């Protein structure tokens, strides 16, 4: 008993480390698949030939349209293109019923954030890829992951590479815009 008395403390440390670094993150995030299998690649590639702005556009007043509504999808997918199950589901469950697809937006900012695409595109001259990466070339949509406690998307505040407030600040600092007034970006 005396001899193995020493292992208990390190054992506790090890168990904690394991649970903390591996078990906890797995538990913290709830993954939810996107409602429809969507391939950006199929739309933007050779076959589709579309540009980002064709679907995600700035409106006249500068506001960002976000993900297009079902009528945009219906423009091409009024009837199934191809015979995949996903395509059939899109047509049957959404297009033909004229129901909006409940997309889960990875970059959806929390309620208190004000983000203007117009300012970044028109004034900042940023391209889509500078922030969103090669999202337009992906073939599948990964599941949306939500922090169970905070309700944030993992992309917004969770992943090591996620866009935190720091990301915004750094860029603004580099570019010399928005001299750190909180309400520049918060509402």
């Amino acid at each position, binding site marked *: 008993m005396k001899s193995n008395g020493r292992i208990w403390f390190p054992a506790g440390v090890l168990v904690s480390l394991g649970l903390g670094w591996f078990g906890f993150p797995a538990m913290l995030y709830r993954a939810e698949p996107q409602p429809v299998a969507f391939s950006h690649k199929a739309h933007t590639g050779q076959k589709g030939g579309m540009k980002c702005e064709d679907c995600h556009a700035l409106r006249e007043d500068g506001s960002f349209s976000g993900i297009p509504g079902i009528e945009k999808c219906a423009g091409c997918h009024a009837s199934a293109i191809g015979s995949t199950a996903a395509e059939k589901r899109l047509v049957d469950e959404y297009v033909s019923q004229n129901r909006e697809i409940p997309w889960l937006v990875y970059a959806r900012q929390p309620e208190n954030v004000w983000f203007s695409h117009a300012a970044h595109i028109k004034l900042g001259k940023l391209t889509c890829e500078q922030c969103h990466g090669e999202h337009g070339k992906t073939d599948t949509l990964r599941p949306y992951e939500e922090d169970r406690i905070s309700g944030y998307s993992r992309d917004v505040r969770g992943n090591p590479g996620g866009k935190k*407030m*720091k990301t915004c*600040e750094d860029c603004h600092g580099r570019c010399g815009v928005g001299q*750190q007034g909180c309400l520049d970006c918060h509402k």
Partner: protein
Amino acid sequence: MFPGIDGFEWTPGHLIFLGIFYTVVAVVFLTLALAAVRAWRSYRANRAEAIRWQADFHDLPARDRACRHALTGEMRERVCELGFDCRRCETHARLLEERPPAQAPAADTEAGGVRLPLDRLYHRGHTWVRPEKDGTVTVGLDELASRLMGTPDRVRLPKAGRRISVNGTGWRMWKHGSDVRVLSPVDGEVAATGGPEAGWYLKVKPAEGRLDARHLLRPDEAAPWMRRELERVQWTLGHSLADGGVMVQNLSEAVPAEAWDAVCAGVFLQV
């Protein structure tokens, strides 16, 4: 607070403020770490017993720490600062040199009804040490302590071969639901154990082969000390234990339950 956090700016205010803050935090945790490291070292060096005595001794009321020479009247009101370890005491050495101990009295002395046999030396923790012919020493409780403990409910004696040191724990006894650590009067290795029934508790092989007895009370010194001890016990109790000038026999029963701990603490020098 940390450079790199949202909204952080280096300003003189930050530098001063955070500088002070981190200094404070660092000092606090370094101090804590220092204490922890030292504690670890002491623990590893088996200094726990020594430390315990040191701490206990300093927590004793000044009155309980009276120098042996003050008890005998050789000096006035002297308080021991060395944990009753006269071996290290310069004053003791000096006094010993100045006034070598007189010839031992012829017969066993007695103080307040407590017998103090001549063949042994006494420790301030109410143990005696009797050198044996085989070079070992026998350690037992003196009469006051024996009567106080009566027949202990439980005794835990060290195993043979275990090292004990002066003022460290000699053995432990339980009585009336509370425990008593009996201070070891000698440095050495436990050779054999006895018990209350044998009238002695430990047989110890003294360290370095011989008994250094400078810190132990000679029987002639023991008498005033014992009278003083009886007095202390009585103060603690708030009433007399004397029965016609002689201490009651069944002391262990005469002590009321609520005073038991206090009396044991007083007798066995612990907190």
